[in-house]
């Protein structure tokens, strides 16, 4: 078989926590139907506040509410969770807004989203966003990307730290200077696979409240960030929906650690007993 036609899709959905939606979308005595993992899932907020989750086929998967999100645990093997996303204090603080949320559908396997973490080379051509520093670190179920940039669009003195906890839950802390004032924000980039060739991105934006800013201005500000992110994802989606998967890419000296990242991600696509060795990578600049 020719090397370049190997484009096999994983035989399972990854193991980990998956965001089903913002807590406020789950109201008491209401049952929400959510499509994911090739199934019809239902979640009901009960009178006592807990959520009853039905994954179909008589299965009920673990569920948690954390950092304003309702998440379910998916594991092809059916084993119990071995990690939980860290608590983000800003999600429980009056100094920060709540998450503004948006979502959209992408027609490809959900692994496509992950490459971005190590894909240093795409920021310029796809997002017109050149950067200065770029670091990656892999540790167990987490993968971290740090970036510094100075951009007229994204902001001056931009710093961002994005971290995956598991295969589908990424949170980012970002600070930038706009019009001479420091702005701090947090992004959530989560996704839910619908089928093996489609997934839904659920993303959220929250900002640190600026003293003196009215609730209306704050809302408009968050919406501005949501729109900007929607625009940036649109640029990615145009690529994602018109590409094949290259399992072993020929990389150049300017590329990030794509092979390392894919190895890290592969741990979620196999049984625990078959998890690859050597997935960790000390923090390094690329």
């Amino acid at each position, binding site marked *: *078989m*020719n090397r*370049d*036609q190997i*484009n096999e*899709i994983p035989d399972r959905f990854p193991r980990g926590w998956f965001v089903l939606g913002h807590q406020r979308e789950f109201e008491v005595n209401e049952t929400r139907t959510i*499509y994911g993992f*090739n*199934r*019809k899932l239902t979640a009901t907020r009960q009178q006592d506040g807990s959520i009853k989750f039905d994954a*179909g*086929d008589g299965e009920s998967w673990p569920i948690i509410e954390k950092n304003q999100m309702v998440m379910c645990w998916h594991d092809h093997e059916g084993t119990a969770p071995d990690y939980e996303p860290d608590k983000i204090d800003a999600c429980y603080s009056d100094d920060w807004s709540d998450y503004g949320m948006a979502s959209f559908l992408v*027609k*490809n*396997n959900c692994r496509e989203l992950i*490459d971005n973490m190590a*894909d*240093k*080379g*795409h920021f*310029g*051509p*796809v997002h017109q966003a050149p950067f200065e520093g770029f670091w990656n670190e892999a540790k167990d179920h987490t993968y971290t990307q740090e970036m510094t940039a100075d951009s007229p669009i994204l902001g001056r003195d931009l710093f961002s730290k994005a971290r995956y906890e598991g295969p589908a839950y990424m949170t980012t802390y970002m600070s930038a200077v706009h019009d001479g004032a420091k702005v701090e924000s947090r992004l959530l980039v989560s996704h839910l696979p*619908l*089928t*093996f*060739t*489609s997934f839904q991105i659920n993303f959220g934006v929250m900002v640190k409240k600026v003293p003196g800013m009215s609730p209306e201005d704050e809302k408009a500000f968050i919406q501005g960030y949501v729109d900007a992110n929607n625009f940036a994802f649109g640029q990615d989606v*145009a*690529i994602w929906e*018109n*590409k*094949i*998967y*290259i399992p072993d*890419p*020929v*990389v*150049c*000296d*300017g*590329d990030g650690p*794509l092979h390392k990242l894919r190895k890290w991600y592969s741990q979620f696509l196999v049984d625990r007993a078959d998890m690859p060795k050597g997935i960790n990578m000390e923090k390094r600049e690329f």
Partner: protein
Amino acid sequence: MDEKLIAPELPVQKDPLSTDFEKGWHKVFSCEDLEVNKAISIDDFATQIVVWRGADGIVRALDLFCKHMGASLACGEVDGNGIRCPFHAWRWNDEGNCDDIGYANKIPPKAKTRSWKVKEEDGSIMVWYDPEEV
């Protein structure tokens, strides 16, 4: 489950040896519909290809998907007589060699893709297929 989710089909780069295409020139497009500095993707050839008309007016063809990270070159831009991938802006020439990467010091020697012979005749863009040459 009472409703079935529909799984979209993904793009593929077919193996040109596993088709029933015959050796010879195959019409893929009409000349007048491909302007200078434009690229199109062709799906009904022995494999998926990108066809573009360079700044010099000459038509060229390569495998559709970039050998780096798999994006469709037809979504990219014609740059001079080559084609630049929309994903990482690698530029490919008509011999199938990558000849420019803006963010790299050195072009990897393995950065090569498959090129296809093209001619224009009687208003048609024709691409040569020979299983022995693939």
